[in-house]
């Protein structure tokens, strides 16, 4: 059944959400790069004396500073999940309703397996994306508590100390590091797939999803009755 549609411009991503998104993406980029270097420092043959250099310490410093930015940016996003617009609301992410699960199944059919060709009409996140972000948020949390748990051993400040319990809980610093390290890979894989899917949706649906994280606007079909 052929229908006529027009595109309607909708303000979806409020400025704080966009700001959060790009700051977050930047933090993760920096954390993954510095973290990878911490885990696998390159072989630099050097004749210098140790006192002349501090580059590895600097890499770690950047990691820790960025970690704080990352964490509080994330805390801010949680706050915005309660006060932001309906697309920013926390309930976008948690599949409470049966329809959320049904929606996810449909997305899989349409976008992943490509058994159906009709795009789903959703303004904010589709339910699968929302759920993925939910998982991602949990991983943000895990990464933060393992990170600050590890950091608590090198810090005298009260804040990282709040997380010191995680280390014995996981069975030691090595376990905490192993988890922290593996989770880095989760972010890398997520970013791959996420960026691809954003491009994919833009390409297939033409609703300006990429630019929506810039200006906040999406273009949504509306049927012409």
């Amino acid at each position, binding site marked *: 059944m052929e229908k006529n549609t027009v595109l309607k411009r909708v*303000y979806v991503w409020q400025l704080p959400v966009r700001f959060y998104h790009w700051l977050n993406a930047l933090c993760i980029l920096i954390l993954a790069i510095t973290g990878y270097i911490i885990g696998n420092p390159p072989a630099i043959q050097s004749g210098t004396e140790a006192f002349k250099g501090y580059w590895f310490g600097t890499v770690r410093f950047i990691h820790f500073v960025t970690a704080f930015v990352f964490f509080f940016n994330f805390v801010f996003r949680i706050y915005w999940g309660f006060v932001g617009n309906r697309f920013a609301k926390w309930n976008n992410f948690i599949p409470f309703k049966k329809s959320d699960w049904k929606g996810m199944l449909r997305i899989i059919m349409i976008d992943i397996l490509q058994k159906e*060709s009709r795009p789903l009409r959703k303004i904010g996140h589709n339910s699968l994306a929302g759920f993925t972000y939910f998982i991602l948020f949990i991983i943000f949390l895990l990464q933060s508590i393992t990170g600050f748990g590890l950091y608590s051993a090198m810090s005298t400040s009260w804040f990282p100390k709040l997380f010191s319990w995680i280390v014995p809980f996981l*069975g030691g610093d090595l376990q905490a590091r192993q988890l922290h390290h593996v989770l880095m890979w989760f972010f890398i894989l997520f970013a791959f797939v996420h960026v691809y899917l954003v491009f994919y949706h833009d390409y297939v649906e033409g609703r300006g999803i990429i630019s929506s994280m810039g200006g906040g606007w999406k273009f949504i079909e509306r049927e012409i009755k």
Partner: protein
Amino acid sequence: MKINSPTYWEAMQAKGVNRRDFLKYCAWLGALLGIEASGVGKIVHAMETKKRLPVIWLHGQECTCCSESFIRSSHPVVANVILDDISLDYTETLMAASGYQAEKSYRDTITKYKGEYILCMEGAIPTGNGGVYCCIGGRSMEQILKEAAEGAKAIIAWGNCATHGCVQAAKPNPTGATPVRKLISGKPIINVPGCPPIAEVMTGVIAHVLTFDRIPALDSMGRPKAFYSRRVHDSCYRRPNYDAGLFVETFDDENAKKGYCLYKVGCRGPVTYNSCAIMKWNNGVSYPIQSGHGCIGCSEQNFWDNGPFYKHLPSFPGFPIEKTADDICIAIGAATAAGIAAHAITTNIRKRAEIKEKVEKGRIKNIEKEEGVNNG
């Protein structure tokens, strides 16, 4: 039998120590334990009035290196500990009596000094198969430990065996080796991990109990804070090399000869809580890292299963030994990239019609503005 034991002071007098040296000794002991000068008077008093503390030292699944480490102590030397400070009433390694006579020594102490003796446990306790994997005098270690713990004033769990299970508890733990803290509750337990612990940490813990008449402050894992609150890495003398990014790449390479950091050959210093780098071993002579080998994390729980020792990242459970999390994740990453590529190609085939339709129909006709209000 009437106990008429000399106090430390008396014991030292008997050794020909004069009052002045005795006070010096107390001050020095105070300095060792980090007591301020005002607290030294307390030590003097304690040493003047106390009888020797009865100690029962049990041996479970162990290699006896904790006992061996103990006798290496330099301050105090162990001869003084066992002749002047404690009454080591039972330890299979050193006691004169065997068999029935040994058991008698044990029984005498747990009955005569009920509630007063310190129980030291060296080794893990096998709980598999009814405890048959470690029996002494026909009784299982588990039976003996439970009995001895009953009347103990406090328990000291020596070494990684008694605190975490150590090598016998490494996968697949064939005998059900179990640490003290998982079997005994309702008693203060001082966990002194390490494989073995540093000698002076061991005698330091005992001296602490004797001198201050209370167990040392413990961290959340029951370890004395005085010895286990820092990572080896935090006090490692190679740390400047770490911060400067100067690493040994393989053993005995140029960098090794310059004493660079051992991080990349697997050093567990960054994840290991112990005093090695501060106190060093065998009276301050060296410690693993100073002698060119990375820390293997011997005071940590499960350190045997965190191998291989020469990789900074351990191998990933269920995968071949030489594969770390990175290798596995890179493989997953490659698979994902391939998946994305395949998906992109399929998209261009299967969604072709839809994309074309939209491009050709040019749908943008009417644009309405919707306010970003909270109506969701």
